[in-house]
């Protein structure tokens, strides 16, 4: 592959869209705004496809990758530290780019219908394009610093879009919460970068891998610290325990935003980052263990909360957290390909579910409470059909996409040495819960009879239905590429590390699947998913009184789940309140009012005092000015003409003479 691929166009096209719509959007007619907003991601997608076509044969040998594009101008060149503004296209970033620009484009199209009546139409699309700009920078980054730019940028875009309805206090607060919680993670990322520079002298991913490979002594120790700091960053961005709290609140944003940023792409950036820096994790069994534990814990934790949520978007939000936990579980058992695969299928079906939820909300006039829906399948046949596909996909029913990816992760977990069986069982229970709460949503929203007969739902316009259908098709077929060697396709990047002393570091050799074991595990997973469906069917169709009676039977348990384990309250009491108190007492009263205010008052007072004295000179009397002028001139003359040194010496001599007597 010698022809230049023009990777720089991929981020810059959405950025141009952001500039045009952001600066001129309010004055441009709507159709131009729409055209610009849609062309930017479509053109970027075209560039990605153009870059992909040369080696699209999945599983085929790809010798020309990675393809590196570096900005010809030097970027950072301080002493030994040399950082280029470089983009890297390899199998991993290619997959991510296809997902980001492809799904991103579909959601842009959907937004045209969804946001049609919104007065912030141009602002919305400029933010959306800005997000795509930063997200593609993040994905293409060849070193940690460029990735960090994208990392911060998507956080910014996320903040802007969560707080899109900024007149609403809850939305503005949610935006701030997302941003601040993400800062904690970003702090970890920064520390990791400092440590990388200090220990490896480089931030380029490939060079770090080379240096790690050269010296077998790099094990544990500082590598573990770096990996854990990176994981902290990933936990912030990808809403893992204990930093997941911002994601449910992020549902305040418009629904397509939830689909694009808070389900399909941005929140998966953490998974992508771990996969991108997986060499570090490979050299630190402990860090891998932490990743797996955090992932599994988050998966089951969020799934239990999702069981009892009544807001359709919140169910999906907790489900997203849970699925992200799956991806980290995959990363933690060194099955990076499986994690990236789940990331991709999840992008399809979760974007689909969110967009379908948006279609439902749109249809019934902004209502998000599941308890007020019901019987919608008759009114919204297409939305119903695609939601069914999405639910089947996320529940893991074959042959839908989620089945393959979830299965791959569970299989990898099962095969992982020391405590893989525990991780596997947690994953399996989560799968059961997932199937249950997704079918619960399905039954509550679409089945039965309408619980709000006064609303008259209407199917969405075609600009919304089109993306839904395409995503539904992807949710059905997206998983099949696993059978065509998706794992091997990614292997050159995420590939088989050299197996060293520790069994943790053994990568699952995808080529040597033991089919029988996998078949057994698959059947178990499917049975579990069907069981979840059956329970949901029992609870919400056959015996609709059951959930209430169960909640009544276990009041404390229900309360715990309905209030999301009181984590927000816990953080509020342990972190937010002390911080606010500290800010109030020390920062505001002592530092701001006391020290800074006092200094300002002192300086101001001195100036006022001096002015009060000096202003007497400004009498306004011309002749007094002239007198001062003359006096000044006389003083200068006196100073220049009188030989002061001689006079002083003479005076001193007199003084001494007097003293001498």
């Amino acid at each position, binding site marked *: 592959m010698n022809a230049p691929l023009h990777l720089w166009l991929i981020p810059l096209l959405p950025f141009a869209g952001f500039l045009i719509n952001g600066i001129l959007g309010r004055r441009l007619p709507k159709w131009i705004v729409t055209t610009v907003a849609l062309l930017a991601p479509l053109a970027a997608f075209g560039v990605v496809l153009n870059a992909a076509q040369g080696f699209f044969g999945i599983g085929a040998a790809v010798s020309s990758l990675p393809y590196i594009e570096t900005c010809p101008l030097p970027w950072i060149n301080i002493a030994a530290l040399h950082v280029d503004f470089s983009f890297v296209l390899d199998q991993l970033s290619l997959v991510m780019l296809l997902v980001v620009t492809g799904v991103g484009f579909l959601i842009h199209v959907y937004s045209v219908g969804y946001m049609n009546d919104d007065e912030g139409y141009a602002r919305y699309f400029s933010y959306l394009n800005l997000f795509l700009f930063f997200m593609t920078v993040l994905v293409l980054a060849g070193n940690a610093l460029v990735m960090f730019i994208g990392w911060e940028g998507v956080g910014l875009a996320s903040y802007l879009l969560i707080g899109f309805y900024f007149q609403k206090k809850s939305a503005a607060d949610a935006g701030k919460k997302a941003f601040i919680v993400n800062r904690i993670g970003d702090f970890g990322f920064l520390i990791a970068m400092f440590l990388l520079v200090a220990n490896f002298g480089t931030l380029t991913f490939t060079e770090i891998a080379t240096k790690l490979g050269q010296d077998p002594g790099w094990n544990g120790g500082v590598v573990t610290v770096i990996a854990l700091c990176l994981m902290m960053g990933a936990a912030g961005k990808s809403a893992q325990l204990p930093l997941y709290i911002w994601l449910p609140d992020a549902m305040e944003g418009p629904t397509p935003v939830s689909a694009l940023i808070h389900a399909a792409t941005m929140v998966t950036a953490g998974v992508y980052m771990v996969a991108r820096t997986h060499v570090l994790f490979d050299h630190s069994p402990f860090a891998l263990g932490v990743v797996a534990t955090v992932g599994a814990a988050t998966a089951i934790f969020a799934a239990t909360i999702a069981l009892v949520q009544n807001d359709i978007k919140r169910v999906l939000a907790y489900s997203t957290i849970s699925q992200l936990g799956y991806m980290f579980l995959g990363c933690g058992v060194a099955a990076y390909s499986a994690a990236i695969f789940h990331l991709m299928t999840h992008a399809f079906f979760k974007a689909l579910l969110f967009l379908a939820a948006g279609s439902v909300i749109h249809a019934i006039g902004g209502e998000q409470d599941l308890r007020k829906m019901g019987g919608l399948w008759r009114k919204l046949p297409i939305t119903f059909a695609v939601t069914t596909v999405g639910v089947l996909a996320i529940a893991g029913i074959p042959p839908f996409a989620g089945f393959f990816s979830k299965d791959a992760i569970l299989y990898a977990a099962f095969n992982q040495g020391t405590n893989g069986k525990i991780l596997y069982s947690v994953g399996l229970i989560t799968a059961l819960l997932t199937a249950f709460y997704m079918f619960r949503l399905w039954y509550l929203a679409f089945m039965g009879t309408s619980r709000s007969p006064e609303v008259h739902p209407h199917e969405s316009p075609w600009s919304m239905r089109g993306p839904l259908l395409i995503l539904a098709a992807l949710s059905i077929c997206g998983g099949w590429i696993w059978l065509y060697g998706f794992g091997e396709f990614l292997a050159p990047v995420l590939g088989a590390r050299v197996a060293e002393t520790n069994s943790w570091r053994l990568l699952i050799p995808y080529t040597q699947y033991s089919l029988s074991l996998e078949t057994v595990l698959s059947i178990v997973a499917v049975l579990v998913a069907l069981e979840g469906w059956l329970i949901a069917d029992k609870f919400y169709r056959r015996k609709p009184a059951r959930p209430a009676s169960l909640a009544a039977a276990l009041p404390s348990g229900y309360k715990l789940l309905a209030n999301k384990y009181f984590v927000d309250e816990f953080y509020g009491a342990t972190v937010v309140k002390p911080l606010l108190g500290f800010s109030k007492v020390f920062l505001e009263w002592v530092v701001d009012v006391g020290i800074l205010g006092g200094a300002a008052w002192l300086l101001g007072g001195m100036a006022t005092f001096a002015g009060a004295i000096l202003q007497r000179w400004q009498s306004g009397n011309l002749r007094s000015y002239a007198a001062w002028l*003359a006096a000044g001139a006389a003083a200068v003359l006196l100073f220049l003409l009188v030989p002061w040194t001689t006079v002083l010496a003479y005076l001193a001599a007199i003084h001494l003479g007097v003293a001498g007597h």
Partner: protein
Amino acid sequence: MNAFFSQEVPLSWYLLLSAILFSLGVVGFLIKRNLITVFMSIELMLNGVNLSFVTFAHQWHAVKGQIFVFFVMMVAAAEAAVGLAIIIAVFRARATLAVDRIDRMKL
């Protein structure tokens, strides 16, 4: 002509005269209330300075001092034109030329 008149006037006399002229100008500027008198005092100061310029130019046989005098005279002429115009404008506006009463710029 006798010897008294054929003698050259000593340098110090010229300088003394110059200082007297300048001091008169300063004093006039400070104590006079009429704007025109103040203005004339300024001219007096300028001419006092001019005299010392010419004196030194003659003493040191340097033409620079004389050139300076021409400059000063030119500036004084320009200043007279502008100054008198301002005085007329002030008089028209305020119907007074007493400097103590032209104090609207005061705080």
